């Protein structure tokens, strides 16, 4: 039974949307936040656990120094103030995926505060920028994973029991919370998406996480409220979880705006609640309602001592920050002379890094773009994976570009080589050798094939002699067939026509 939705245009006319985004980043550290267990994804259940992350009686946490460093890097990249002194705090609540039944987090003393991120997004009037203010960046620990068994839907309601795997419990989690982003009008969904995308790129560029939304190393909770336009009255916000892709961020925000609008128009209150986003419908449903709001009873974590990062160290980290992704994109755009739309296409297809790396190997930028955005992106889409997960590297593509430029491959043959590399047959030269791919460009070989074709199709040859050049196609086709497509078709045409008096 779905809830009524207001038409989006009407929502924008009547209300100002206010956004809040909470992003959790799972760090790619070798070991967990408070213990030395490995963090490798996909291990057998409960094999990367120890007394600490299992919350066994007597166990104690000790902070991972790399996690502190990563948090500071993220904070600096987001222009935050780094606290000279801060503490961890216990957030107390009971849930079976949280072994201690409290989460070690930070409460009123986060490590980073007061930052901002300038976010670009596309509007009807071109690219615009909005400054999203960052409230805080803090450290905490991830929970275990529960598998719900029984019940008709496999989701929690109606499940007979649950099975818990604590491999993920204790993996470092960095929480980044924005301040309320005021009125972005109809672009609220796009702004949200652009913020998350830019944040993802920044975190990735820092090398502290692989930030893959589909694997859960980047998670987004979206908060939305509507304020009647011009009233200055803040609306009640809802929080939406389970937003697992950039596209879902956009859809979830839009959907919530429409849902809030419908309720307000009908004179109903918007409940302050946590909702669950559904990929299939693009809509949200309420989470289980709680009788009373949870009281987390925060207090400073007594098993850990305060964190007081040395000022000189912070400056060293600041100096080590890589080029901001937006600046890098601007630089590449200018270097390559490429329009915005094509830049966006590369960013959206997730191939910008790959193109740059290919160019770094010596390939022509346009050719590099052509392959990554063209053939390779097409194959990635077909397989429903990201381009950078295909087994083809910038080195491979650069080699193919080189071979085409040298005339050792035609475009058509190059495509075969690319397919071969992606199929796992090896590097381009290996594929070429194994498949016997060779441009036949030796004139005498080609001439021999051409003469055989003419002998096979004398009528077509006669037409060409008489000026009906289109008839050459059949003859060229024969030559291509005989050479198993390895002849350079353009060259064949040239030789054929010349031979037949043109």
């Amino acid at each position, binding site marked *: 039974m779905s809830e009524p939705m207001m038409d989006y245009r009407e929502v924008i006319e009547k209300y100002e949307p206010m956004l809040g985004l909470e992003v959790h980043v799972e760090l790619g550290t070798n070991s967990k936040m408070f213990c030395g267990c490995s963090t490798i994804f996909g291990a057998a259940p409960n*094999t*990367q656990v120890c007394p600490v992350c299992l919350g066994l009686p007597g166990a104690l946490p000790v902070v991972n120094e790399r996690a502190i460093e990563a948090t500071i890097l993220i904070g600096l990249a987001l222009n935050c103030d780094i606290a000279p002194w801060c503490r961890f705090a216990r957030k107390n609540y009971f849930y079976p995926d949280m072994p201690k039944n409290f989460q070690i987090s930070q409460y009123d003393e986060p490590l980073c505060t007061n930052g901002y991120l300038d976010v670009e997004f596309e509007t009807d009037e071109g690219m615009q920028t909005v400054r999203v203010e960052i409230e805080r960046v803090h450290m905490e620990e991830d929970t275990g994973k529960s598998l719900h068994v*029984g019940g008709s839907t496999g989701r*929690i309601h109606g499940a007979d*029991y*649950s*099975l818990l795997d604590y491999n993920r419990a204790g993996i470092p989690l960095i929480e980044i919370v924005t301040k309320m982003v005021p009125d972005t009008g109809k672009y609220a969904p796009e702004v949200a998406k652009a913020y998350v995308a830019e944040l993802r790129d920044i975190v990735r560029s820092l090398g502290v996480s692989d930030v893959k939304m589909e694997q859960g190393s980047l998670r987004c909770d979206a908060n939305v409220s509507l304020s009647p336009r011009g009233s200055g009255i803040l609306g009640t916000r809802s929080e939406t979880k389970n937003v697992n892709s950039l596209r879902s961020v956009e859809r979830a925000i839009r959907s919530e705006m429409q849902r809030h609008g419908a309720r307000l128009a009908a004179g109903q209150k918007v409940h302050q609640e946590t909702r669950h986003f559904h990929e299939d419908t693009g809509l949200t449903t309420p989470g*289980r309602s709680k009788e009373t709001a949870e009281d987390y009873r925060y207090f400073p974590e*007594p098993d850990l001592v*305060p964190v007081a990062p040395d000022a000189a160290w912070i400056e060293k980290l600041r100096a080590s920050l890589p080029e901001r992704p937006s600046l890098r994109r601007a630089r590449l755009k200018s270097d390559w002379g490429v329009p915005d739309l094509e830049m966006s296409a590369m960013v959206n297809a997730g191939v910008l890094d790959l193109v740059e790396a290919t160019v770094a190997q010596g390939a022509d930028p346009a050719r590099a773009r052509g392959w990554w955005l063209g053939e390779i992106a097409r194959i990635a889409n077909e397989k429903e994976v990201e381009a950078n997960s295909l087994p083809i590297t910038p080195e491979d593509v650069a080699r193919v570009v080189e071979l085409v430029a040298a005339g050792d491959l035609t475009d058509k043959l190059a495509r075969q080589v690319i397919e071969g590399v992606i199929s796992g047959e090896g590097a381009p030269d290996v594929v070429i050798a194994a498949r016997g791919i060779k441009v036949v460009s030796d004139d005498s070989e080609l001439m021999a094939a051409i003469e055989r074709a003419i002998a096979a199709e004398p009528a077509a040859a006669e037409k060409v002699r008489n000026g009906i050049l289109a008839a050459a196609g059949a003859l060229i086709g024969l030559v291509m067939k005989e050479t198993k497509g390895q002849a350079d078709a353009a060259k064949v045409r040239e030789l054929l026509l010349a031979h037949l008096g043109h």
Partner: protein
Amino acid sequence: MAGITREDVAHLGKLARIELSEVEIDQLTQQLGDILVAVARVQEVASADVPGTSHPLPLVNVTRPDVIRPSLTNEQALSGAPSSEQERFKVPQILGEEA
């Protein structure tokens, strides 16, 4: 200062996930009422200019390097489990919302 009520104690029992009986709630209400009066004395000297101490010794920045150390085996991890299945801890159905 308001004392602690039965409702308070019942609510606290829920927060602390302890199924308190009516008798226990009665007893605790009375005992905690007395204790709270006694401990409330701390407010007499807890003035605003006194900072709180959360750690007896002024240690800071105790960390460990990001190095992998041996974990327990699956058998060891599950050794105390009241119930397990498929190498995981088996627990009754969870009603509460996912955090």
